């Protein structure tokens, strides 16, 4: 019997996918192997002409306005450039890149057995236990599937119509979780795909409550930011202490790259899985709600709050979103042109921070030109 049990346990152990190995892990800092500027002069000129040429009026804050580009290839820092007063030491606002962080934090909580993604959010937010919002599952919060009547509008629409602006600066700012869950239930959870900063705030709140039981109020740093060598990440909160997981993460571009590198390596860091096996794969597969309910015009599929470079299933759109980039690429995207682009088949992570108020840098062009520099 003991032999049988041992055999079963051994089989289970063998069935696990091993973590990728690397020559070095950038916990203490990125190993540098900067590109040869002479040999790559043409490619560098092309990248910088595209990414760093101001195309509008700086005083009017128009056009493409890049603050940084960092390129990681084969586990090493190959290129970095900063502009407009930023240096490698300045944190940058993530905007919606934060959503991918919140999704990852749910992953860490699942890994620790503190969260089940099919649970109701009310398991973790007991103050809502008698609310109809208890039909929302944790999984819905990381797949834009809560069904809430959220209105994701920004500066170019009526401020009064924006759930986001009201939450960050207006009537909802003191208790942003309450603001999110005060929205009407427009659809049954899982039956509507609606891109929402509120959903990601909800995910971060669940992660915080669950992880804090074991790790205290600095849980996000203990389970994710410190293990990957990014202890200086700032994750802002509201006046009630709820993390603003849809938009308000600040990190240096090098630290954003470490987060991308974690996902490039299947959620592993130096031999340790920080999120469950299969989490990165699920994060980079179109969610069921996206497949069944995303609106017709939404051409870039999403998984667990990451954007995917595959044809929208069913393929009503015949092209990948980023046509010159392999179909295993995925990205974390934020307002004003923040990007963490991960391309596993190129062993590449590209970070771009920016301040594109009225236009947006093209991710396809950025990733393609970045790869030309390092290949």
């Amino acid at each position, binding site marked *: 019997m003991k032999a049988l049990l041992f055999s079963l346990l051994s089989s289970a152990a063998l069935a696990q996918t091993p973590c990728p190995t690397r020559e070095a892990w950038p916990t203490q800092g990125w190993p540098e192997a900067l590109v040869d500027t002479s040999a790559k002069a043409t490619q560098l000129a092309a990248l910088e002409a595209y990414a760093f040429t101001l195309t509008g009026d700086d005083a009017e*804050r128009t056009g493409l306005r890049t603050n940084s580009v960092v390129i990681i290839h084969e586990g090493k820092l190959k290129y970095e450039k900063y502009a*407009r*007063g*930023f240096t490698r*030491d*300045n*944190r*940058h*606002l993530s905007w919606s890149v934060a959503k991918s962080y919140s999704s990852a934090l749910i992953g860490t909580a699942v890994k620790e057995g503190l969260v089940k993604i099919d649970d109701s959010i009310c398991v973790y937010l007991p103050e809502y236990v008698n609310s109809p919002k208890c039909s929302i599952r944790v999984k819905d919060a990381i797949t834009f599937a809560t069904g809430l*009547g959220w*209105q994701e509008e920004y*500066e170019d629409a*009526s*401020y*009064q*119509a*924006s*759930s986001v*602006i*009201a939450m*960050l*600066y*207006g*009537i*909802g*700012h*003191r208790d942003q979780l309450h603001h999110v869950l005060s929205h*009407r239930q427009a659809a049954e959870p899982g039956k509507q795909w609606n891109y929402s900063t509120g959903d990601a705030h909800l995910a971060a709140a669940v992660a915080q409550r669950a992880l804090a039981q074991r790790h205290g109020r*600095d849980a996000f*740093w203990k389970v994710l930011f410190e293990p990957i060598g990014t202890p*200086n990440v*700032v*994750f*802002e*909160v*509201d*006046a009630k*202490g709820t993390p603003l997981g849809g938009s*308000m993460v*600040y990190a240096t571009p090098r630290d954003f790259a470490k987060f991308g590198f974690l996902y490039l390596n299947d959620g592993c860091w130096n031999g340790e899985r920080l999120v469950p096996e299969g989490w990165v794969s699920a994060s980079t597969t179109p969610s069921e709600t996206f497949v069944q309910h995303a609106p017709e015009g939404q051409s870039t599929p999403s998984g667990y709050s990451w954007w995917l470079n595959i044809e929208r299933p069913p393929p009503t759109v015949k092209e990948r979103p980023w046509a010159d980039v392999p179909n295993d690429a995925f990205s974390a995207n934020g307002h004003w042109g923040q990007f963490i682009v991960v391309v596993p088949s190129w062993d590449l992570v590209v970070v771009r921070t920016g*301040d594109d108020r009225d236009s947006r840098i093209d991710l396809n062009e950025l990733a393609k030109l970045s790869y030309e520099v390092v290949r």
Partner: protein
Amino acid sequence: MKRLVLLAALALGACANPLGDPATFDNNDVELAVGNTARMGCSCLFVMNMDEAYCRAWVKASPDVAKMNIDWADKSVESSAFLSFAARARLVDDKRGCVLE
């Protein structure tokens, strides 16, 4: 005259959007402008560690009516507009950044 028209428009904005319409929120543009300036100004200065000139440009929004007053010792930013609109954001610690009070 232009200023008068602007003030009248803003006052009307303050009265618009009554509660009860699920598609709108009971904020007027000036409240939002001072909230934006306080929050984003605080984070720009004390989280991103950018200089004051950069941060004054960073927070500029429409309508461009919010003044930004920095308390360097308290690591806070207060924003105000006209006589009755104000907001304040303060750096709480080096992990949680700025909070709009």
